[in-house]
């Protein structure tokens, strides 16, 4: 335990509480908000926000799926199984809709299965180019964003104007700038609190989230003591994390997470969107200039290069890969990135997650890895 843990910051406490709040009870936590579910980082939150919704990422839960087993094979990743299970149990009936952006084959299938299995929660989809450098990708994405906006507006029962979207882009850019500062101060924050703060950004009404982040940053900037000055500095790579247990285990093992290449972490909050001109074009341009997630490709912007840049920029000592079991894009990506890290002599460890659980064996391996870096 650190000193910081013994004098918790109020904003940090709130963000941690939101991160751990059960999804099924979301409306009790945020009464008055109009929640709209989404899977995954490429769903344009600005559009949902501009329509008056609060976008709520559907994270996986710890409990074993039951109903989803009647719709999905056992070799489906935990997130997809768990999300469908909650929805089929009626635990997400409070959602005004569910938005899916095209990423992997499993999420693509889930969008279709959801339409059949959970008719109470309408589905909207967004096609996103798989090759971020493809000829015509921008025009395609702008057109599909237009259709996405129309679908969302219909569910909202109101129009979503360009001005609404621009205002929403301003808010989300503010959040992105704050998160960038949060990463810069990650030395001063216990690792589980860093992840909780990032996760909360997918669950909280965004104006509230912006204010909580600003308060947290004010407190962190006033106190420049690192929480674990001697701990090896780590970067975590993966799609998302369903809870903070991995980060807790890393801290228990003696490590400290300074940054990540998580779809719902650094990648989600990186790159600002232009807030002048055509807002849909601005969203498309932001998408096409991001570091691709594992399910996407860009011939001139590689994930292994991006990670090595991050390792250098954050003076990291090692990398922890935390893919979900059965995740095809991260399964391939792991080898490409691992090879790049080996060439650069950056130590790394693979921790494959199932049911979001950190097992005893994983703890042992984490302990050995961190000890090696110490």
């Amino acid at each position: 335990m650190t000193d910081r843990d013994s004098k918790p910051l109020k904003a940090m406490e709130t963000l941690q509480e939101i991160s751990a709040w059960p999804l099924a009870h979301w409306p009790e936590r945020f009464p008055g908000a109009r929640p709209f579910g989404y899977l995954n980082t490429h769903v344009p939150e600005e559009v949902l926000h501009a329509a008056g919704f609060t976008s709520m990422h559907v994270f996986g839960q710890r409990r074993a799926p039951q109903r989803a087993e009647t719709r999905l094979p056992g070799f489906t990743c935990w997130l997809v199984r768990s999300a469908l299970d909650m929805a089929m149990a009626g635990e997400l009936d409070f959602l005004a809709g569910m938005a899916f952006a095209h990423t992997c084959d499993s999420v693509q299938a889930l969008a279709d299965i959801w339409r059949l299995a959970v008719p109470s929660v309408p589905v909207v989809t967004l096609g996103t180019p798989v090759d971020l450098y493809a000829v015509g990708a921008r025009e395609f994405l702008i057109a599909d964003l237009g259709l996405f906006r129309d679908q969302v507006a219909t569910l909202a029962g109101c129009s979503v104007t360009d001005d609404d979207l621009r205002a929403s882009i301003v808010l989300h850019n503010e959040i992105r700038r704050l998160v960038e500062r949060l990463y810069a101060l990650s030395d001063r924050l216990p690792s589980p609190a860093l992840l909780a703060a990032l996760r909360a950004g997918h669950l909280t009404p965004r104006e509230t989230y912006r204010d909580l982040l600003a308060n947290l940053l004010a407190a962190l900037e006033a106190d420049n003591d690192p929480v674990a000055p001697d701990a090896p500095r780590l970067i975590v790579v993966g799609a998302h994390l369903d809870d903070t247990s991995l980060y807790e285990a890393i801290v228990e093992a003696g490590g400290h997470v300074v940054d990540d290449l998580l779809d719902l972490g650094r990648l989600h909050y990186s790159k600002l969107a232009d807030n002048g001109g055509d807002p849909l074009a601005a969203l498309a341009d932001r998408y096409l200039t991001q570091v691709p997630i594992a399910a996407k490709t860009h011939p001139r912007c590689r994930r292994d290069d991006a990670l090595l840049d991050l390792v250098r920029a954050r003076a990291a000592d090692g990398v922890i890969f935390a893919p979900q079991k059965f995740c095809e894009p991260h399964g391939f990506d792991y080898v490409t990135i691992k090879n790049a890290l080996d060439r650069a002599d950056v130590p790394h460890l693979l921790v494959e997650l199932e049911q979001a659980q950190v097992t005893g064996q994983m703890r042992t391996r984490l302990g050995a890895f961190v000890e090696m870096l110490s």
Partner: protein
Amino acid sequence: MVKKSYRKLKVAKDLTRMMSAYYAKMRIASRLQPVAWVSSGAPVEVLVALGVLPLYPENYGAILGTQRTAVPLIEEAEARGYSPDLCSYATGHLGSVFAPEKAPMKGLPKPDMLVASNNICGTVVKWYEALADHLDVPLFVLDTPYVHGTEIKDHAIQYVAAQMEAFVAWAEKQTGRRLRQKKFMRTLALSNEAVGLWRDIRELCIHRPSPLNAPDLFTQMAPIVVLRGTKQCVNHYHKLKAEVEERVEGGIGAVPGERYRLLWDNIAIWPGLFRFYHLFSRAGACFVCDTYTHAWSMGLQADDPIEGLARAYTAVYINMSLQTRTQMMVDMAKRFEVDGAVLHANRSCKPYSLGQHDFRRAIMAKAGVPAMILEADMCDTRAYADGAIKTRVEAFLEMLAG
């Protein structure tokens, strides 16, 4: 000794000869013409018209599966960090690249370029990225947006057509050759003709008894995959069609004493091409239709070849929504008057396997026949539980007899 429970096609020998020659010649041809490794849903007509030799790692994966030689190669990939949960075509083929000395035919001749389209899965993008890195050759990714609704949106067609134009320019640059319109149109016409013949041949299985069974279709599909756009492919399907028509006229079924007509969903279980499917044919059960070989039945519009290619390669079966596929499967079950359906939950193929529970429900409710989901793998014999599968198949057949 397993009793012979199906009739072998006369053209099976021709196919074996043709495919053996294809693989024997590829090594020589690869020294004379540029080689592209392509995914099965890549617009190969452009490459063929440019004189490129296209080779198909997926087809190579199927060979590994059929020969039961995939596992040692998959293990080579696993030793380099690839997970056992990944597509076994990909890991088997990557294994052949890493350890060609252990691979049948010492692997495929090295490519000069790579072409992958995500119209069959997102996996090929990652697989080909890995190949491009390892072999240091250029890669073209053709992005075909998944069709969640029933119709392909105009802007999606425009997007794919724009990439198709870029693909032609890219392939011309790689080869240093110009795509000659006449040759291109002729290749498209040959591709269309083969696709039409293949569609006709599959439709002939509507007859009782069915002239073909799943293993026939799975083996006879090889030319439509690897020789699409060539005269050789068209000639073969003319011959096959004549033999199948002859069977129909003579009332000759692929499975003697056809008792049950079944629908197959998903990629074949290649290592069990005979043993597994014999479990059915022995009981008089014939797979008269399937969704896998149906994937190569989309004709091209010739008036605007680029848009025609864009449309055909976007409308690939597995790139369509579950709702569209359900409708197609139910229609197929009704038209072919099947008595049941077997859905292969293929651990290697998520886009094909996620949604099968809904297919099963729809087939049972709308076609009024039983349907069974069987978990296995298209190549990896480690995922094939012999005893359990046999028991389940027997129970299913008993139910059909019921």
